[in-house]
């Protein structure tokens, strides 16, 4: 890449080990999108203000634009592409469709990763818990009410 020193990083992504040659300055979001073709992770502000780039580091939602790829180490990364089980959508993904919790869909992958992480750590959330979980996300289309409804429905659907 443009004469910059490249380093090989091994990343555990969506259950598979991938190797990418990256500049040390590249963020995880840039590597996912630009090197590994995982474009489901979106960059919108590129400085941790909007959470569109949310992925899981182990099971913690983080902004992928705020972490250098070389700092990921051995921790596992889960992106929106790794959330469904084969053809079966994650309950949060299905609920987003059923409740029309998306409009343009650009903030949606990040929003879903935060809501799915919430259900993992708290299978029986209330609306306040959902608000807390997505309080760092911006959706300019204004899907928040339907996102709350969808996440509560997903919790119910998975027996929470």
């Amino acid at each position, binding site marked *: 890449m*443009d004469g910059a020193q490249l380093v090989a990083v091994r990343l555990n992504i969506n259950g598979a080990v991938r190797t990418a040659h990256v500049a040390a300055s590249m963020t995880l979001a840039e590597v996912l999108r630009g090197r590994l073709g995982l*474009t489901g992770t979106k960059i919108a502000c590129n400085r941790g203000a909007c959470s569109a780039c949310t992925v899981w580091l182990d099971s913690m939602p983080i902004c992928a634009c705020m972490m250098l790829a070389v700092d990921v180490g051995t921790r596992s990364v889960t992106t929106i592409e790794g*959330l469904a089980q084969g053809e079966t959508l994650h309950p949060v993904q299905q609920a*987003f469709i059923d409740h029309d919790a*998306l409009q*343009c869909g650009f903030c949606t992958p990040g929003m879903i990763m935060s809501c799915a992480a919430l259900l993992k750590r708290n299978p029986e959330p209330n609306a306040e818990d959902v608000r807390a979980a997505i309080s760092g996300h911006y959706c300019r289309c204004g899907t928040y009410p339907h996102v709350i409804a969808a996440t509560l429905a997903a919790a119910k659907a998975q027996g929470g």
Partner: protein
Amino acid sequence: MSVAKQANLRTAVFPSGIASVGLGTVERQIPADEPPPLPPNNELRVIGKSFPRPNGPAKVTGAVRFTVDISLPGMLHARVLRSPLPHAVVRSIDVSAAARRPGVRAVLTIADPANPKSAKLGYVGAPVAAVAAVSLPAAEAALHLIRVNYETLPFVADMATARAPASPSVHDHETAPSGHPSGFPAAANLPLNGNVRGPSLVRRGDVIKGFAEADAVVEAEYSTSVQTHCCIEPHAIVADWRADGLTVYMSTQFTAGVRDEIAETFGLPLNRVRVIVDAMGGGFGSKSSLGNYGYFAITLSRQAKAPVRLFLEREEEQMDAGNRPGTWQRLRIGAKRDGTLTAISLVSYGTAGIGLGAGVGSNAEALYSCPNFDGAQHDVFINAGPGCAMRGPGNTPGAYGLEQTIDELAEKLGIDPLALRDRIDPSPIRREERRIGAARIGWSRRRRPGADSGPAKRGLGVAQSLWGANVQTNAACEVRVLRDGTVEVLSSVQDIGTGITTVLAQTVAEVLGLRPDQITVRIGDTEFPPGGPSYGSRTTASVTPPARTAAWRVLQHLFAEAALLLNAAPEDLIAHEGKILVRQDFDRALSFKDTAAHLRTDRVAAVASRSDDYGGFQRRAGQDAALAQRDLGGVQFAEVAVDTETGIIRVERVVAVQDCGRPINPRQIESQVQGGVLMGVSYALFEERILDQATGRMVNPDLEQYKLVGVRETPQIDVVVLENYQGQSATDAYGIAEPANIATAPAIANAVYNAIGVRLRSLPMNPAAVLAALGKVAYRS
């Protein structure tokens, strides 16, 4: 009307009226080759039901491709060098070092010292040069090698200063934008006096006489902040210029319009330009045209003979991707004791930076019955990035002033604000919306202003919106049935998140007796029939009637085949639940699929275009568009709690009662209205582009210091949508996106007044503004 044309018309009887009030009928003359009237939603199987979006699965799995996700073989990456100065002339520019840098494939000088008009830079962030290179970091590095010699010019970065005669001039007659014959975004041929352009005048009756006849007069001044669009997906384009034609992938609200613009700009024949958008990450008015960045990417691709991707960084989004202009307005309204209006006068000054279009719209002129009106609207140039249309342009800042003035008038007359509107608002739609909304919010709970004794004070407010029902007549749709029974709908119309994909699938499925998931919707590509723009709340109104008509015409082909097989007359056949049936004898039936298998050719298709509204338009708007007879109604109620110690306004609940003709997908409409309301809450309480007066720079060109509504500030939003039939088209469906945004901020403002008894007259209504209004802190300019 010619005899021949009359022969092609037939009389049809349509449902008419508001479903919750009671339906009657209306007789219309309709083209003979258009389908019969569509019954009300309660008699339909697919239209009026909340089917999920066909593109939902691709959106929730990350599989869908936005423009920023597109990567072509050999694609280059572009970046733009931007002016650090608010007003300057480029005296010299040296791009040779950048051009020599390894990896750089093309350099474009945008501000050309040899061309005085292009050499002049009018705002911080104005483009100076652009580079395409093999990687984004290479392009970025090359920008640093460009040497520019700027001659600084005096600048002005606020409207009040710009209006003063001694102010530095932003434009001269050479560089000043000239407006448009259509009047949008601003009228042509208006005088330019210093930095002030206009006024644009509208007059009827005699306001002097009207004010003399008034028993009560209210007068007040209002100002609104500059709001930026903040699309979460940035503006983006991938341009691929080849010898045999140009293909452009672009995040756009109008593929067909961008194609026209490119063809004209680059001197290309229309059939050599193709514009494509799959998923589109929000526009709100700011992605309606090619834009300067689109021009740069295409030019760089042509120069480099390779595809070029260009997207804006967030800071560029905030500085050079359009904005809702800031406004100042003075309103004066006179009325009789019983509320009858006698005169309205409006003077406004607004600024769209170096651009035009900062008017406050038509609310004051047209929302209420008033014989005497005098409006004078001005654009003021300042050294800031150009504004552009944003969700309900003009009428959104305009309603903030007008609807507060009406609220103030009601109080002065001692009349309830709803009762006053019942007297002065001629719309039967909004009358019903007021009735429904008042019951839903519990309007009878409303108390006198400032009634709460403690520091936290609650209040209720109401405001209305006015928005025209736009129709793009240059809109068409193709429907195909293939021999295996599959169905496709094709149009260049784009789904920007509003859900037209679902709506088209439902419209066609209803005609063909199929389920929406059996219809493949292929849109967002200028290879298909022109679908019109996704702005002006016109998409559904423009493209669903031709979709239904095309589907109906294709069905007649299938009926002709089936009639032979069923030994029945084509006119006795109906399409129902995947079958073609004989109307009087349901046992005689063929499956849709079996019927298609008998087609003479592999597929049968029909293309239909948008005919004029049945009963005619209110008026045409240029060659390609028109305004329907109806307006799109909307009344919103807000309940707020104001903490008079901290100045924080909390919007607890909004009830939005809206009209879009025939609702096609209620849940998607609910999404649209929630989005409009939230953008209004955000406008009311948080949003403000702040320019540093010493440097002309935006000090909050990001998403953390530029404040937006988040989920924590999202109120309970009750959405009620009327079913309003008027028999105006093959679907009788109209738009919703913009009307849902207009009334929110003034409804909140009126609720705040009701809570604290002090009126806030400027946006945003943030804690500093509240505390200043309460006299607790010094006034903040």
